[in-house]
């Protein structure tokens, strides 16, 4: 089977202002269906730039990007919008939910921009289903400011999932979360990956990268390491351990 994503010698030069910033300097990468990749690297190494290219939000200044065998590097603004809507799901670093809008309506948003019209009945059902996947169906009518950070991130994941994308892209999805909530989010990702969705995410944390199957390290706009994760962590087990540790801590604290 051909790879879903093929990057061939991708370059991205930011040329606004006096100095040019060469943020991505020739990255080639194949991603196959069902992969679960973590991209790591120092701040400013070009991870977000690479993700924006993968997410069709940005156009590379050089190289070719084949998505499903189709060259998308030279598509127009609205064609790329359609690809973002249909084939890709993007989870942004800062959640980026619409304020004063219920979780359900936030999740419905991508369906409102679908090329084919979707009935409001179907929209609601699909949005509820996506919220169930991330375990938030009961809070569908909550506004973002009534949800915790982890819950908001899960709404953002549900929104990325609702149009059934082939690839889920997440730029530092656990960046603003505490370690336990981060593990919960990784649990959601592992479940989705087990169901066949390809996932690419950026992270700064080494232990979070251990929940993925393949790790890439980027430095100064090039991939310097590309390896499979050997002793992969399973979120379910780690959560269980955390719970037991908490319970034990409570017991010892309670005993005189």
């Amino acid at each position: 089977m051909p790879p879903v994503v093929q990057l061939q010698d991708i370059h991205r030069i930011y040329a606004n202002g006096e100095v040019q910033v060469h943020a991505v300097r020739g990255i080639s990468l194949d991603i196959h269906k069902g992969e679960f990749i973590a991209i790591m690297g120092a701040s400013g190494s070009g991870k977000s730039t690479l993700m924006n290219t993968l997410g069709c939000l940005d156009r590379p200044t050089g190289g070719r990007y084949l998505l499903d065998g189709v060259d998308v590097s030279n598509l127009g603004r609205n064609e790329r919008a359609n690809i973002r809507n249909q084939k890709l799901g993007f989870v942004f670093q800062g959640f980026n939910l619409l304020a004063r809008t219920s979780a359900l309506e936030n999740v419905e948003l991508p369906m409102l921009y679908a090329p084919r019209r979707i009935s409001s009945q179907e929209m609601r059902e699909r949005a509820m289903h996506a919220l169930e996947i991330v375990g938030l169906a009961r809070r569908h009518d909550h506004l973002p400011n009534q949800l915790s950070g982890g819950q908001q991130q899960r709404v953002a994941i549900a929104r990325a999932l609702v149009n059934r994308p082939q690839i889920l892209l997440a730029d530092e999805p656990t960046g603003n979360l505490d370690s336990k909530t981060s593990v919960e989010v990784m649990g959601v990702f592992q479940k989705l990956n087990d169901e066949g969705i390809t996932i690419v995410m950026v992270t700064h944390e080494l232990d979070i990268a251990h929940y993925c199957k393949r790790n890439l390290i980027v430095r100064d706009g090039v991939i310097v390491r590309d390896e499979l994760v050997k002793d992969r962590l399973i979120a379910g087990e780690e959560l269980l351990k955390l719970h037991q540790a908490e319970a034990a801590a409570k017991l010892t604290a309670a005993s005189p």
Partner: protein
Amino acid sequence: MRLVATTVIALRALRRNKMRSVLTALGMIIGVGAVIALVSIGNGAKLQVEASVASLGQNVISVYPGSVSTSGARGGWGSASTLTPDDALAIQREIAGVVAVSPETRDRAQVLANGLNWNTTVFGESPDFTSIRAWDLSEGAMFTEADVRSAAKIAVIGQTIADQVFPGSAPVGQTLRIRNIPFKVVGVLRSKGFNYFGTDQDDAVIVPYTSAMRRIARRTTVNTLLIQALAPEQMFRIQQETTDLLQQRRAGRDPDFTVRNQLELAQVATANARNMTALLGAIASVSLIVGGIGIMNIMLVSVTERTREIGIRLAIGAHDHDIRLQFLLEAMVLSLMGGALGILLGVGASQLVAQLNGWPTLVSMPAVIGAFLFSGAVGILFGFYPAHKAAQLDPIEALRFE
């Protein structure tokens, strides 16, 4: 274009910011309300003017003393009347289509009865007066041709005189002293109220013109000739023939009279009222434009304020025309909603004015429809620039915007 979906999106966005939406629409509400209220008041005034012009009588042509041509110094109206009852008789005799004529005299006089006195205008008229001025009697009867011939001491009084001089009693049959000469009251005119010029039409005593000329004022000329035409179509012809006839009767002299017909007056008066309505409407339209600029202002601010939201929408798959349509629809919904509420406000305000001030108002359907359509147009016009600005944002930059 995803019209249905975008409408849902726009409505959701407005609902999310109820307060801002209402404040934005406020300019439109007040603008449309002002247009409708002012045009209603103007229309009411026009109706009132038409009613009071009609109260001057039916198909009336009037002859006033005074020169229209210029030769040396001219006096004011009525400065040197040469109009006589004989002129009136000649007009009635010689001009076709004249159904009634009254040589009118006007004299201020003190009237007295039951120890109560009152200063009023005494009109000398022919019995045709009631027909010419379309003015019925509420009690008694008009004096007759025979009373004119005998210069009878008989009077018909207006309602104001009845109220002031005969309070609480029936005036018909009683004696009214005019400049101390006793006249017998034979009738009371139905109340007509104030006319276009603001004078109380009921403050009047009507006597035969012969009695006025011989007994009260001792005069040989009259102030005005009132002529009634059979039909409105004949008025301009009769006006011309009256001019010719009177000119001929004053052979060789400069014309010292003016002939006016009621249609002219009605036309001038209604044109004035119409101009006033248009002026009020124009002034109020300015507030519509101000309301539109208010909408544009808020929409522009909200494009900046909502940059992140726009970034999210674009990142999730919105096309640029989806964003443009959304902001355009938001502006249009705001202004149309403002227009609809403004119509309610305008109708309410004109009703209130009618109640509080007793002014007549007439809500005009064209004004309502026009104001509503105009508010929609304003929404498109002033929503376009902000919408265009929003649609041109770059998704990544918009997302990064703080």
